[in-house]
């Protein structure tokens, strides 16, 4: 009956109305709903929870997490952005910089370059150690580029590519300088910037950049250069319901109100009938609310506990490894918290 349906909607859907969003907060706590047992139950959670990988390639991952609370999904997103460690350039020792780019700007740009090194094999550098780091916590790179005039250029050429040699400094000019036993641990070419065609600076004849970079392990909370994801985001699974059958011209209009592929118009017994085919594709532009007739026919909602995560890696680690690392970080936090709770006395 209608009341039961309304309760189900309140518990499981976030409804997008014409002028606002309803049922945003989680309300299924014990005692809120008569007849429902909402207390935390590990077995029920394990039965309902699932993770489905929808699409994965070397740099991006799309997966669904079904049956968890918003707080946990958000925690994973926050951890992916800010608390999964990577290696990035922290200290730049400038021996010579006669380029037009100031030292500090150059150092800032170098810090943002993603470095292809597995951060799990390194340790955090202890604070307060100003001398060069050890092989267990530091990576060294050398960048040495000098721009000269090309003696073989044509007399009247104006193309910098012809006139000058080394006038553009790319990440491929960065060379790894192994410290200690790093040369034995990492094969040739394993430690490098992720992309070798990032433009660092531009030079003209006579200008030179000669510097040494130290990379350390850090987390995104400290500086965004340490963030391992281009971005990590989630959205809730859309749920589109047609409250009445939509036929004929209205069906065509309805299918145009949504993203392509969401509404399918079928020919049944000569009439065109609209059917919700794939609500997952919809981006919820709410175009349907601008149509006076159709806005009463459709209920736009999102499934409250179905999260579609999209993780894009910068290339440091594959995205599935990043998600596992994020889960380990969360487990580490909880374990540390439990241990501390044991240790602290009530005052």
């Amino acid at each position, binding site marked *: 009956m209608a009341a039961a349906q309304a309760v189900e909607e309140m518990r499981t859907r976030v409804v997008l109305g014409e002028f606002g969003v309803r049922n945003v907060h989680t309300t299924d706590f014990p005692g809120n709903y008569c007849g429902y047992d909402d*207390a935390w139950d590990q077995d029920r959670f394990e039965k309902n929870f699932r993770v489905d990988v929808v699409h994965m390639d070397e740099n991006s991952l799309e997966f669904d997490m079904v049956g968890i609370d918003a707080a946990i999904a958000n925690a994973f997103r926050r951890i992916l952005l800010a608390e999964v460690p990577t290696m990035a350039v922290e200290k730049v020792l400038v021996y010579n910089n006669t380029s037009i780019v100031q030292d500090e700007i150059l150092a800032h740009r170098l810090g943002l370059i993603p470095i292809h090194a597995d951060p799990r094999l390194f340790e955090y550098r202890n604070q307060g150690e100003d001398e060069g780091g050890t092989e267990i916590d530091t990576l060294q790179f050398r960048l040495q580029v000098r721009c000269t005039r090309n003696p073989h250029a044509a007399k009247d050429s104006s193309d910098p590519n012809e006139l000058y040699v080394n006038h553009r400094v790319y990440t491929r000019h960065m060379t790894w300088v192994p410290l200690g036993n790093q040369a034995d641990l990492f094969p040739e070419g394993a430690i490098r910037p992720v992309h070798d065609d990032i433009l660092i600076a531009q030079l003209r004849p006579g200008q030179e950049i000669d510097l040494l970079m130290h990379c350390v392990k850090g987390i995104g909370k*400290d500086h965004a250069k340490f963030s391992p994801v281009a971005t990590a985001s989630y959205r809730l699974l859309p749920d589109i319901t047609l409250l009445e059958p939509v036929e004929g011209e209205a069906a065509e209009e309805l299918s145009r109100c949504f993203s392509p592929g969401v509404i399918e118009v079928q020919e049944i017994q000569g009439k065109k009938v609209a059917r919700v085919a794939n609500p997952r594709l919809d981006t919820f532009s709410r175009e349907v609310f601008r149509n006076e007739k159709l806005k009463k026919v459709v209920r736009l909602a999102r499934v409250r506990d179905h999260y579609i995560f999209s993780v894009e890696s910068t290339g440091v680690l594959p995205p599935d490894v990043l998600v596992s690392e994020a889960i380990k970080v969360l487990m580490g936090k909880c374990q540390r918290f439990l241990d501390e709770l044991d240790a602290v006395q009530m005052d």
Partner: protein
Amino acid sequence: MTTPSAFRGKKKITINKDIKVPKACLFTINKENHTLGNIIQSQLLKAPQGLFAEHRGPRPWQHKTIIHVQSALDCTPRRPPPVPSQTSPGSSPCWRRESERPHSSARTK
């Protein structure tokens, strides 16, 4: 700055009893934010003995979360309802019960 070594010497958790309300506690957790605070709050609300639970970050420049919990009369904010082996009123809060003893939720009803 936020590496583990930056942390040495500071207490992670401080527990204060809330004087205004019976059976309530304030847990101040250093160097944590909404990532952990929101999770703990939502799990505390799921526990049948949890009457009130909130997490707040008092000021943006103070890197800590405060978790404010009030529990029902038959258990204290730190520990779940009495397990025969424990005599002192200071046992682990409900979320700990979930992670350590997953079947105790059936017993509490």
